[in-house]
């Protein structure tokens, strides 16, 4: 579904991505492992059009998408739930979710249905729908961010560190929800430092280090790999 071929991205003279090639198949849940500064967020921002690759190509179902504007990409179904959530802090939870459906604003019936689904996924958000998103706890804000991304009707959902700063119990719930989203047919690309939990729900995984992919494999291979265990699981 999504394919990257030898993608390079530079910040000035610093090369943040050095020829990254990867793919995410339809319906797959793929995990991207890597330490801070390895290039996960750069890779995500490149796929969602916030950064332009200096070399290489990104294709979605065979169509070239690198260089397209972010708004076009959201329209094509490539939706990112960014690190740090990037909510609209003074708007209510419901306003945040409604803006997720900005590109589908004419389909009011469909949006109402999606909103019900998001509330079914995160019942706490329905109780807090009129509160400003900025006043919620970290876990709840993450739910709003994922809910808002779902309102954009993603075909490929990219989640950048959704477990960052959340209590362990909430992290488990978060991964459960991600599994459910994936099972309903949405391809998921998940960047995580919480490698063990992420690998448990993944089909496949890539490891990124210093702007290059250094390893890839399916769930079993990665969980069994000595280097991955040492570096990211700590066992």
């Amino acid at each position, binding site marked *: 579904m999504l394919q990257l071929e030898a993608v390079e991205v530079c910040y000035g003279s610093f090369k943040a991505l050095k020829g990254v090639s990867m793919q995410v198949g339809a319906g797959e849940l793929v995990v991207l492992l890597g330490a801070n500064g390895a290039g996960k967020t750069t890779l995500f921002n490149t796929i*969602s059009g*916030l950064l332009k690759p200096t070399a290489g190509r990104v294709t979605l179902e065979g169509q070239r998408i690198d260089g397209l*504007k*972010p*708004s076009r*990409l*959201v*329209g094509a179904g490539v*939706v*990112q*739930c*960014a690190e740090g959530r*990037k*909510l*609209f*802090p*003074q*708007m209510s939870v419901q*306003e945040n979710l*409604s*803006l*997720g459906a*900005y*590109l589908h*604003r004419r389909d009011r019936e469909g949006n109402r249905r999606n909103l019900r689904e998001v509330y079914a996924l995160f019942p706490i958000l329905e109780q807090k729908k009129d509160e400003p998103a900025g006043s919620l706890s970290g876990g709840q804000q993450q739910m709003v961010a994922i809910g*808002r*991304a779902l*309102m*954009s009707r993603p075909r490929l959902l990219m989640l950048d560190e959704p477990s960052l700063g959340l209590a362990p119990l909430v992290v488990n719930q978060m991964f459960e929800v991600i599994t459910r989203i994936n099972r309903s047919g949405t391809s998921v690309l998940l960047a995580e430092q919480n490698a063990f939990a992420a690998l448990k729900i993944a089909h496949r995984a890539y490891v990124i280090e210093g702007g290059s992919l250094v390893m890839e494999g399916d769930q079993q291979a990665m969980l069994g790999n000595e280097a991955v265990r040492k570096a990211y699981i700590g066992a």
Partner: protein
Amino acid sequence: MNLLFQQVLNGLTLGSIYGLVALGLTLVYGILHIPNFAHGALYMVGAFASYFFMTDLGLHYWIAMLLSGGVVAVLAMLCERLVFHPLRNAPPIHDKIAAIGILLFLEAVVQMFWGSDFRRMASPFGGILRFDGLIIPEQRLLIIVGAFTLMLALHLFLRKTMLGSTIIAMAQSREGAFLVGIDANRVAMLTFAISGMLAAFAATLYAPINLVYPAMGHLVIMKAFVIIVLGGMGSIPGAIVGAMILGFAESFGGFYLSSDYKDIIAFSLLVVILSFRPTGLFAKGAH
């Protein structure tokens, strides 16, 4: 009693005009972080456009105001497209220089066609209403009612429509807005258009009790900057409250001290308020 009432009326009138101008300035600042020095020139062009439609084409005041709003909205969008958009990745000082460039350019163009004379713009609302000894010039009443209607309309547009909420979304989180697929260019043009339209309406409302001349925007834009600094850069309620504070301070200060000091009051107020609240009355982003 009557004198006090007149000062309240003057304060409201000034505050209304300042408010409309400051709202446009704060909207643009909130979205694009451009201090648009050219905003005063847009205000001035708005007055001349209405003047032209009324005196040269003989159109009615209301129609002239609407057309002028449209003309200045287009002009503001052109400024965004042709000047500010190409500078979006340049250092911030370039925006400021460019804004001053637009200001000088527009003033020169207006001067070329109309000269630098002071002109009087007639209004069909030249009458005076009397209630129980209170005197209310119609045009002042029109300014106050008109400004509050426009502010309410702006509020409803920003809060209740999807298009309007894209402006607020962009102001609160630029990246968040990109993530949901909001097109930054469209929001920028929309913001400039609204800002220009408000400036043109304000100028057309105020011109009949003032004069129309190429430098008429100077003091207004300086005060609008004072207001948005007072109210908190980018804050919408801050712009309205700041405008009213300034309007009343000028009207009462001008009356009880001396009208010669009217314009100094604005800047003294800025110094005093910023000494106590350096971030302005309303923190940025509070809508």
